[in-house]
């Protein structure tokens, strides 16, 4: 009986923990810009969900701000492939971080924690 009680208790704990882990506040907390100066007020959003940037490719005008919002329960980043153009740092669940790009070009980026996650920003 003791064994059964222990197993039931652990199972109940699992349900509570998993339910708690999947919930959370929906507040967005914008962070300081990780990008370059020169924003002209335009903004496009890229959601990070299920270990993917959505959309994976965005085309923007110079000076446009790209806002990355993490919907996953694990942290992600948006880090330029060259490692110098931009790096949002860790974006927590429901947090948004922005990048502003002014120079025309094609910027590939990835998640530093999960390098298989890739995206592209085309500035033209």
């Amino acid at each position, binding site marked *: 009986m003791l064994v059964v009680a222990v197993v039931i208790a*652990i199972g109940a704990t699992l349900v509570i923990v998993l339910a708690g882990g999947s919930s959370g506040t929906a507040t967005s907390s914008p962070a300081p810009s990780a990008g370059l100066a020169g924003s002209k007020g335009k903004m496009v959003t890229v959601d990070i969900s299920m270990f993917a940037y959505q959309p994976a490719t965005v085309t923007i005008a110079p000076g446009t701000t790209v806002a990355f919002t993490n919907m996953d329960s694990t942290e992600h980043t948006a880090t330029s492939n060259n490692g110098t153009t931009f790096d949002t740092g860790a974006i927590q669940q429901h947090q948004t971080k922005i990048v502003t790009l002014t120079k025309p070009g094609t910027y590939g980026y990835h998640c530093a924690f999960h390098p298989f996650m890739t995206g592209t920003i085309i500035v033209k």
Partner: protein
Amino acid sequence: MTPTAKLSRSDRLRFLAIGLLLLEGGVHLQQYTGLLHSVPTINTLFLLNAISAALISLALAATRDQAAILIALSAIGMTVIALVSLAITRTSVLFNYSEPTLRAPVVFAALVELCVVLVASWFVTLRIHELSKAPGV
């Protein structure tokens, strides 16, 4: 009416190990379906852990002699691999994946896995001791 046979201490540990193994597999299955199914390689490993945990639990429930010791050892091996993998992903990248966030399911899985290792090891030790004392062994 036949009185219910009292379970030996090792049998109680065996059933506790089965429950914990099912929990370990359940957490991995939940993480696979809820979050990690799109992560290359890691998704397969989580699914394999869930399937292996279920199969080992069934095998452990079906036997109680020397074979149970080997099955418990396989459970320990699988779980230690899962724990070491988690430790690696906490500090660096494994199969293009890292776990920077100490999420509730991660903490829970680690605790359950530690319990699996402890209980299964305790069962193996006790069962070996019981078998060595059994008549005719």
